[in-house]
C-alpha cells in the first residue's frame, strides 16, 4: 500500500470532500437547467376551451344556427379532460330567448362529464344592453351558481325551476303564479295537466341508463308578458323519436337514416306528431299507457294554450290554433326534448 505523506492527507480528504460538494453543486445546476427548459403548458395540464355564441341565440327564432352552437358546446364538453375550463363567450349576442337560456343551463348542469372531470364553466356578458338585461333578469347567473331558484320570481317576470321527479306542489305554485299575474280568474286545469304530463315523460322515458351522458333533470321557465305567459319546458334526454314504439317499416327507415346520418323522410317530426295524436306509440306496450302526449295535444288545441312548439331529435312540430300540426326537419340534432307554449290570460275565441 502506498504510504501517504502526512502533509498531503488533509488535502486528499479535503479534495474528496470538495469532489462531493462539486458533484452536488453540478447536480443542482443540471436540475435547474432542466426545470427552466420545461414549457409553461406542461406545468399545468388543464386547457381552456372557448365557445363563441352567435348574435341571435334562439331555438324558436334562429333554430339552425342555435342548434349548431349547442352541438359545438356539447362536443366541447365531451372533448374536455380533467380540470379543463370552458369559457362561454356571450359578447356578440344581441338577442337571446328564454328557450336558449334554459338550454344552456340544462347543458351546464346536466352534462355528467362536467361534474366527473371537474370542468370549470365561466363566461362573459353580452355587450348589447338588452341581451345582457335578459340574461340577468332570467336568473341565469343565480341559477348556475346555486343550481335552483324559488318560484317567486325576480321582478315578477322570469322564473327557472328544475327537478328530477314529478313535482306536483311546484306545478300548483306555478298555477298560483299564473292566477296572480293574470289579474282575472282563469282556468289553469289544462296548464296543470300539461306540466305534470311533461314531467312524467321525462321521469319515465327521457333517460334510459347510467351510460347516458346527461343527468336526468327537467327544467321549466315562465316569462310574463302583457297578454300571455310564455312557458318553456325541456330535458336533455334521448328524445321522443328514440323512445316511442316504431312500426316495422319505420325501424328499417330509421336504420337507414342512422347509417346515412340523414333524416331523409322527416321521420323524427313524424314520430313526434304521431305520439301527440296518440297513435299507439307507447314504448311500454301496455294499452292503458301513452295517454300523456295526447293529453298535451288536446290541451294545446284549447282556448288557453297557443303556439305550442315541440322540438326533439331531428324533428320539430308546431301546433296551430286549429290543431293542425306542421312538421319540420332539423339538420342538426336537438339533444333532448323542448316544449314551448303561450298561456293566454284571456281565452282566445
Amino acid at each position, binding site marked *: 500500500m502506498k504510504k501517504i505523506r502526512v502533509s498531503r492527507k488533509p488535502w486528499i480528504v479535503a479534495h474528496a470532500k470538495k469532489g462531493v460538494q462539486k458533484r452536488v453543486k453540478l447536480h443542482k445546476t443540471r436540475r435547474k437547467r432542466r426545470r427552466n427548459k420545461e414549457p409553461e403548458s406542461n406545468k399545468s395540464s388543464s386547457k381552456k376551451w372557448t365557445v363563441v355564441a352567435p348574435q341571435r341565440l334562439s331555438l324558436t327564432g334562429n333554430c339552425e344556427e342555435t342548434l349548431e352552437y349547442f352541438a359545438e358546446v356539447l362536443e366541447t364538453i365531451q372533448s374536455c379532460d380533467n380540470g379543463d375550463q370552458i369559457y362561454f363567450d356571450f359578447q356578440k349576442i344581441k338577442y337571446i330567448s328564454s328557450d336558449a337560456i334554459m338550454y344552456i343551463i340544462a347543458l351546464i348542469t346536466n352534462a355528467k362529464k362536467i361534474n366527473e372531470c371537474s370542468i370549470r364553466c365561466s363566461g362573459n356578458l353580452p355587450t348589447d344592453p338588452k341581451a345582457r338585461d335578459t340574461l340577468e333578469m332570467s336568473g341565469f347567473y343565480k341559477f348556475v351558481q346555486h343550481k335552483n331558484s324559488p318560484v317567486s320570481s325576480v321582478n315578477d317576470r322570469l322564473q327557472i325551476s328544475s327537478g328530477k321527479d314529478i313535482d306536483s306542489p311546484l306545478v300548483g305554485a306555478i298555477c298560483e303564479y299564473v292566477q296572480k299575474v293574470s289579474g282575472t280568474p282563469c282556468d289553469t286545469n289544462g296548464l296543470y*295537466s300539461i306540466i305534470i304530463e311533461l314531467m312524467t315523460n321525462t321521469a319515465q322515458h327521457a333517460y334510459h341508463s347510467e351510460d347516458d351522458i346527461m343527468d336526468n333533470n327537467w327544467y321549466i321557465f315562465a316569462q310574463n308578458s302583457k297578454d300571455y305567459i310564455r312557458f318553456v319546458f325541456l330535458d336533455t334526454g334521448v328524445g321522443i323519436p328514440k323512445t316511442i314504439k316504431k312500426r316495422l317499416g319505420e325501424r328499417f327507415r330509421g336504420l337507414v337514416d342512422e347509417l346515412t346520418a340523414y333524416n331523409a323522410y322527416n321521420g323524427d317530426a313524424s314520430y313526434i306528431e304521431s305520439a301527440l295524436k296518440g297513435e299507439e306509440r307507447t314504448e311500454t306496450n301496455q294499452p292503458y299507457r301513452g295517454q300523456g302526449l295526447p293529453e298535451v295535444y288536446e290541451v294545446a288545441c284549447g282556448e288557453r294554450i297557443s303556439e305550442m312548439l315541440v322540438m326533439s331529435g331531428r324533428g320539430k312540430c308546431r301546433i296551430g290554433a286549429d290543431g293542425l300540426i306542421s312538421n319540420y326537419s332539423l339538420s342538426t340534432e336537438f339533444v333532448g326534448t323542448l316544449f314551448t307554449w303561450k298561456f293566454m290570460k284571456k281565452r282566445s275565441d
Partner: protein
Amino acid sequence: MEINIAKDYTKTPGGRFAKEGPFSGEDFRNKILLPAFEKAKSQNEKLVVVLDGGFGYAVSFLEEAFGGLVRQTEDPSVRNIEIISEEDETFKTKVYKYIDDAIKEL
C-alpha cells in the same frame, strides 16, 4: 260514503307511480281509494269521489287511480263509483273511460 280528493288527499295530484313523486295515482289508490271502495262495498253503500277543488289532474293520475283500481281488484263494480267533477266535466268522462277500458281487459 264520499271522498273529496282536494280535502282528503291533496290539491296537487301528481303522476302515475309512487316512485316518480308525491301524491301519485298509485299512492292515492292504495291509501284512500281502495280502502274506501272495499268499505263501501262491504257496507253496501255508494262511493262518491269528488274531483273539484284542486289545481287539476294529469290523465296518468286518473288512469292509475281508477283504471288501476279495476286491475287491482278485478272487480267490475268499480264502475258503480259516482264521480263528481263540476269544475271540469271532461275529468268525469275520462275516469269512466279508464274504468270501462280496464274492465274490458279483465
